[in-house]
C-alpha cells in the first residue's frame, strides 16, 4: 500500500516541503530508500525498523520502498526518521493516513522508539505556516522553538507509540499552553543580560569610541597592550546595541536553529549574538561552507558582533575573505549545483597589539624596531584597514585607575555605564533612521560617497580647516569620507544638526594607524 507524509528539509536559511512516499508491497523482504539522501538519512532504515518493533508494532516481512521527493535536491539531517516510520505504519494500515493529510512531521527516532530533537525546527515550522499546513508534529525537545511561530497547531510527542496514538485518535488542536511566549518577558530590562561597561576601568577614550562605533554601526579596532581590556570592551558591545526587533530576533533564532545552537533555548533568542572565533579558524568556518554548506561565524554573528581578537594572528586569507561580506552585508556560498545566501549583517570588532611584544610605545619594555612595528601593522592589508572607521588605542590600566575607581564614588560619575551609553546610542540611532527613511540603509557607516556629500555638508569654517588638514596629513579620498561619516555619527550623538569642527577633530583621532 502507498502512503505520503509531509516533512521538511532546510536549504540555506529556509526550509522547503518534502514528501516522504512509502510503498509496502509483497515481494522479497527488503528496505529501499531513494531521493538523493545523505548517509545519515540512509542509516535511518536500521533505526526505524528497530524503533517500530520496540514500540510494539509488528511488521510482516514485506518489500518496503521509500522515496523522499523532490528527488533532485540533496537532503540531510535526521528529521526524516519520524515521517518514514509513520509512512510505513500508514502503508500497513496501522496508522490512519487521512488523519495526517494536513500535517508536517519532523523528528529523529531512537532505537527504543522515543523521538529526539533535531536542528532547524524553526524554519521548517515557518515554512509549514507559509504553505498553510494546519498541524506540525515535532519532538518534545523542540517544543519551545516550534511555539515561536504563532497561528499553527504545534503538537509534540515523546515517542512513536504516543505519536501514533495521537494521530489515530484525531489530532488535538493547540494542546500546549503557550506560556513562555515572548510577550511576558518583554518587560524585562535587556541590559541585565550583559555585563556593564562601568566595570571597565579607565579607558575613557576607548569607551567613547565604542559608543560612537555602535551608534553608527562603524567597525572598530582596538589597539593596545596585552591585558588592557580590549576583550572586556568588545564583549560588552552587544549590551549597548538597541534591543532587537521581533524580525531581527526571528532571524537570529533561525540561524541559531539551523546551526544547532538552540537545543536548550527557550523560545526566541533575545540576546544579540557575540561571536569570537579563535585565530586558527578556517575560511569556510568563518564564511560558511562545507560540501553541504552550513552558515559560518559571520552569519552566526548577524545582527550582533563578530569579535576577532588578535586579528594579526588570523590567516590573512581568512581576513581578506571578510571584504565582500562587510560591503554586501551578506555572504554567498556557491557550490557547483546550488548557492546559498546567508545574511552577514554584523558589526566587526577587532583587537590587536601595537607591536610584536605588545608594549609599544612604552620603550622601557618594547624592544621592537620601527620597521618591525610597521611590518606588524602591515599584517593587516590596507583594504581591511579601510573597513575600520574607528581605530582606538587602549592603555594599560594603572593601579591608580583601579584603586581610585573602587574607592571614590565621585570618580565613578565620569565612567560611562551600559545604560547611559545605550540611551545615547538609541537617540543617535533614531536620528539616523529618520535621515535614511526611504533609502536602503539604516546607519551612517553604510553611506556611499553621494550620501556623504548630501548629509555631511561642512560649513565654511570647517571646510577651510578640513582642507588644511587634508593637505597636511595627505588624506586619501576614502580616508576623507570615512572621517566625515564618523564625524556625522559624533554629531548625531551630541544631537547637533551640523557637523562642527570638534566632531571632525575627534573623528580624526580615530583614524587608523596605517594612515
Amino acid at each position, binding site marked *: 500500500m502507498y502512503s505520503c507524509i509531509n516533512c521538511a528539509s532546510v536549504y540555506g536559511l529556509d526550509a522547503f516541503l518534502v514528501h516522504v512516499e512509502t510503498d509496502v508491497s509483497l515481494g522479497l523482504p527488503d528496505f529501499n530508500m531513494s531521493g538523493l539522501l545523505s548517509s545519515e538519512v540512509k542509516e535511518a532504515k536500521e533505526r526505524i525498523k528497530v524503533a517500530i518493533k520496540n514500540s510494539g508494532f509488528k511488521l510482516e516481512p514485506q518489500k518496503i520502498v521509500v522515496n523522499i521527493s523532490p528527488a533532485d535536491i540533496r537532503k540531510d539531517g535526521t528529521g526524516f526518521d519520524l515521517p518514514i516510520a509513520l509512512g510505513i505504519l500508514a502503508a500497513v494500515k496501522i496508522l490512519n493516513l487521512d488523519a495526517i493529510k494536513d500535517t508536517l512531521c519532523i523528528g529523529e527516532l531512537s532505537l527504543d522508539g522515543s523521538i529526539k530533537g533535531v536542528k532547524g525546527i524553526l524554519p521548517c515550522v515557518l515554512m509549514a505556516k507559509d504553505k498553510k499546513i494546519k498541524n506540525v508534529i515535532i519532538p518534545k525537545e523542540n517544543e519551545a522553538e516550534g511555539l515561536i511561530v504563532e497561528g499553527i497547531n504545534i503538537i509534540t510527542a515523546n515517542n512513536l507509540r504516543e505519536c501514533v496514538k495521537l494521530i489515530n485518535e484525531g489530532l488535538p488542536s493547540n494542546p500546549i499552553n503557550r506560556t513562555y511566549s515572548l510577550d511576558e518577558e518583554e518587560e524585562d530590562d535587556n541590559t541585565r543580560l550583559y555585563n556593564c561597561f562601568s566595570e571597565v576601568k579607565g579607558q575613557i*577614550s576607548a569607551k567613547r569610541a565604542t559608543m560612537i562605533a555602535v551608534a553608527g554601526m562603524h567597525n572598530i579596532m582596538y589597539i593596545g597592550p596585552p591585558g588592557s581590556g580590549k576583550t572586556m570592551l568588545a564583549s560588552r558591545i552587544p549590551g549597548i546595541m538597541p534591543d532587537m526587533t521581533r524580525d531581527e530576533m526571528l532571524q537570529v533564532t533561525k540561524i541559531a536553529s539551523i546551526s544547532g545552537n538552540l537545543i536548550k533555548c527557550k523560545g526566541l533568542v533575545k540576546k544579540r549574538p557575540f561571536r569570537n572565533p579563535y585565530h586558527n579558524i578556517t575560511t569556510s568556518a568563518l564564511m560558511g561552507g562545507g560540501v553541504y554548506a552550513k552558515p559560518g561565524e559571520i552569519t552566526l554573528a548577524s545582527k550582533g558582533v563578530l569579535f576577532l581578537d588578535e586579528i594579526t594572528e588570523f590567516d590573512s586569507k581568512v581576513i581578506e575573505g571578510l571584504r565582500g561580506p562587510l560591503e554586501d552585508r551578506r555572504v554567498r556560498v556557491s557550490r557547483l549545483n546550488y548557492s546559498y545566501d546567508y545574511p552577514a549583517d554584523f558589526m566587526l570588532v577587532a583587537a590587536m597589539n601595537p607591536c610584536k611584544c605588545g608594549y609599544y*610605545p612604552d*620603550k622601557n619594555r618594547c624592544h621592537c624596531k620601527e620597521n618591525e612595528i610597521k611590518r606588524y601593522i602591515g599584517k593587516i592589508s590596507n583594504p581591511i584597514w579601510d573597513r575600520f572607521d574607528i581605530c582606538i*588605542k587602549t592603555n594599560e590600566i594603572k593601579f591608580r585607575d583601579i584603586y581610585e575607581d573602587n574607592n571614590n564614588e565621585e570618580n565613578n560619575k565620569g565612567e560611562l555605564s551600559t545604560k547611559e551609553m545605550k540611551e545615547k546610542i538609541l537617540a543617535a540611532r533614531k536620528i539616523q533612521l529618520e535621515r535614511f527613511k526611504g533609502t536602503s540603509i539604516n546607519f551612517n557607516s553604510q553611506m556611499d560617497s553621494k550620501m556623504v556629500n548630501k548629509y555631511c555638508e561642512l560649513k565654511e569654517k570647517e571646510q577651510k*580647516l578640513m582642507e588644511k588638514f587634508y593637505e597636511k596629513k595627505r588624506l586619501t579620498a576614502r580616508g576623507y569620507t570615512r572621517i566625515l561619516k564618523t564625524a556625522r555619527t559624533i554629531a548625531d550623538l551630541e544631537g547637533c544638526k551640523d557637523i562642527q569642527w570638534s566632531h571632525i577633530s575627534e573623528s580624526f583621532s580615530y583614524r587608523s594607524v596605517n594612515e
Partner: protein
Amino acid sequence: MTKDVEEGFYWYWLNNIPRVGNIKIHNLLDRFKSPKNIYSASFKDYTQVAKISINDAKQIDLAKKSEYIYNDYKKLIKSDMNFTYPVSNDYPKALLNLNDYPVNLFYYGKLADENKPIVSIIGTRECTNYGRKIAYEFGKAFAKMGIQVISGMALGVDYYGQKGAIDNGGYSLGVLGCGVDLCYPRYNYDLYEKLKIKGGVLSEYKPHTPAIPASFPMRNRIISGLSDAIVVVEARRKSGTKITVEHALENGKDIFVVPGRIGDELSYGCLEMLSDGANLILEPADICKCERVKEKLFNSSQSKTISSQNTQFRHNSLNSPIASPRNMVYSELDLYPCSLDDLVKKTGLPLSNVVENLLELELEGLVEETAKNYYAKIQIS
C-alpha cells in the same frame, strides 16, 4: 696599469688572501712595510712572521696566482665605487692612528673633510620619540654649524642624526658593516640614496659583502677613529654604542652624552657613561667644549656664529599667559609621548575638547602624534 692602480692592486690583494685577516695583515705589514714587498717575498719569509702558519703562507703563495682577485680588482676599478688604501691621498689620515687600521676602504660620494670638525651621533636602534627628536635636532644644528656628522646608518638614533644633517644642507658619512653597494638596513634606503649624493657611504668590506653581526663592532672602530667627538643620544645598559665609546676612549676622543630620565631603559647606558665621567651635552653648541672641534670650527672658513643656531633649545611656550584649554593641553605635553587618556585625566577637560586642541596644535606644527593616540611636543623646550 698606472702606478696608482698597481699600488692599489697590491693593497687589494693583501686584503683578499683567504685565511689572512686584519691581525695577520698588520703583522705582515710590520715586517715587510708595503704590500708590494709582501707580494714579492718568498714562502720562507712568510713563515717567519708572527701568527703566520705554514698553511697561511701556502695561501699567500696561492693568492699570488689567483685570477679571481685580479679580475675582481679590475671590475672594481671600472665601477663607480671609489677605492682607497692607506698610502692613497684620499685615505682618512685619522684612521692611521688605529692599531688595526683598515687596509682597504670602499666608498660612494665623498669622504669627510678632515680639516672640518667631524662628530658622530650614535645610539640605540630602537630609540624613543625623545631620542629620535634629539638626534635629529643635533644633526640639524651640527649641519648649520658646519660640523660633519658621521654614524653607522643603522635604525634609530643613527638614522635620525644623519637625516637631520643631510636634510638641512650638511654633510654626513655613513659607515657600513657590509659592502657599500648594499643598503643595510634596507629600511633606510631613503637615507642611503641621499648619502650617496650629498654625503658619503664608507665601508672596509668589499662589494657584495653581506652584513654579519661580527662586522658591526669593526665598523664602530672606524666611526670612533674618524670622529673628533662622539655624541651618544640613547643607549641601553648593554649596548653596541658602548663598543664605539670604548674604542673612542682608547683613541683619546671626547665623549658627549645626552642625559635622559632616571628609570628609562634607554637612558640607563647614557647615565652610566655620565657617571663614569663622560661630558654632558645639553645643547648642540656644547660640542665646542671639545678642543679639537672648536679649533677646527674656527679654522675653517665656514665658521658661523654658533649662538644663533640654538633657537630650538630655548624655552618656547605659547604666547598667551591665560590658562586656555589649548595652553592646558600643550603644557601637559613633553618630548615623551603621552596617551590621550592620560591627557584627559591630567587636564580635566572633556575628551572631545582635548582632541580638538591637539589637532589644532598639530596643524600649527607644535604637536605630533607619534604613535596611535600618543602625542608629543615637536619643539624641544
